[in-house]
């Protein structure tokens, strides 16, 4: 199990790296937000992996909240983009 989760973490870290690259590159605000959103989803996955690893439910609230927060954040910025134009 440890090996599996380590591989998972590595994959998620790589995902994170790709997201960061997109964040740096842009070019539009929508791209950046998409990158952050995806990064957060990767985070959700990471927390889920941790829960699967330990079988503990301590971080499940976090899992729920990260997903919620990603949703709110992205929607909010989407509204901003819609109002203010491409950046």
């Amino acid at each position: 199990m440890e090996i599996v989760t380590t591989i998972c973490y590595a994959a998620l870290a790589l995902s994170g790296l790709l997201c960061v690259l997109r964040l740096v590159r842009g070019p539009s605000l929508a791209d950046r937000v998409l990158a952050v959103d995806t990064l957060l989803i990767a985070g959700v996955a990471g927390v889920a992996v941790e829960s699967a690893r330990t079988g503990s439910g301590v971080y499940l609230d976090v899992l729920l909240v990260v997903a919620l927060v990603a949703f709110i954040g992205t929607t909010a910025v989407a509204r901003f983009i819609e109002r203010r134009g491409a950046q």
Partner: protein
Amino acid sequence: MSLADMASAFLLLGGSAFILLATAGIWRFDDVYSRIHAATKATTLGVLLVIAAALLRVETMADSLKLCLAAILQLISAPVTGHMLGRAAYWAGTELTPFTVIDQLRSADIEH
């Protein structure tokens, strides 16, 4: 290692792989709309798989429910996120890739 654990491990690997794939799409696709495709589908699947893996491992009812809620939330939010972002980008004038063959929204908007 129990069967549940085996399944769990399998789901974990699959889920992570999909997420990696999705982010690769975000990096590789050529316009924001295409990237949204990658972000709203592959990641959702990936997360669902990982959550399923966790479901196999957690013990209490509350924990399972929390995982389910998270899955539902993800299922509901991912498409909405994609829609909201895509729509915003579109109305904000974010360029479509030149390989876009048809844009019926533009023509409808002009008619309007």
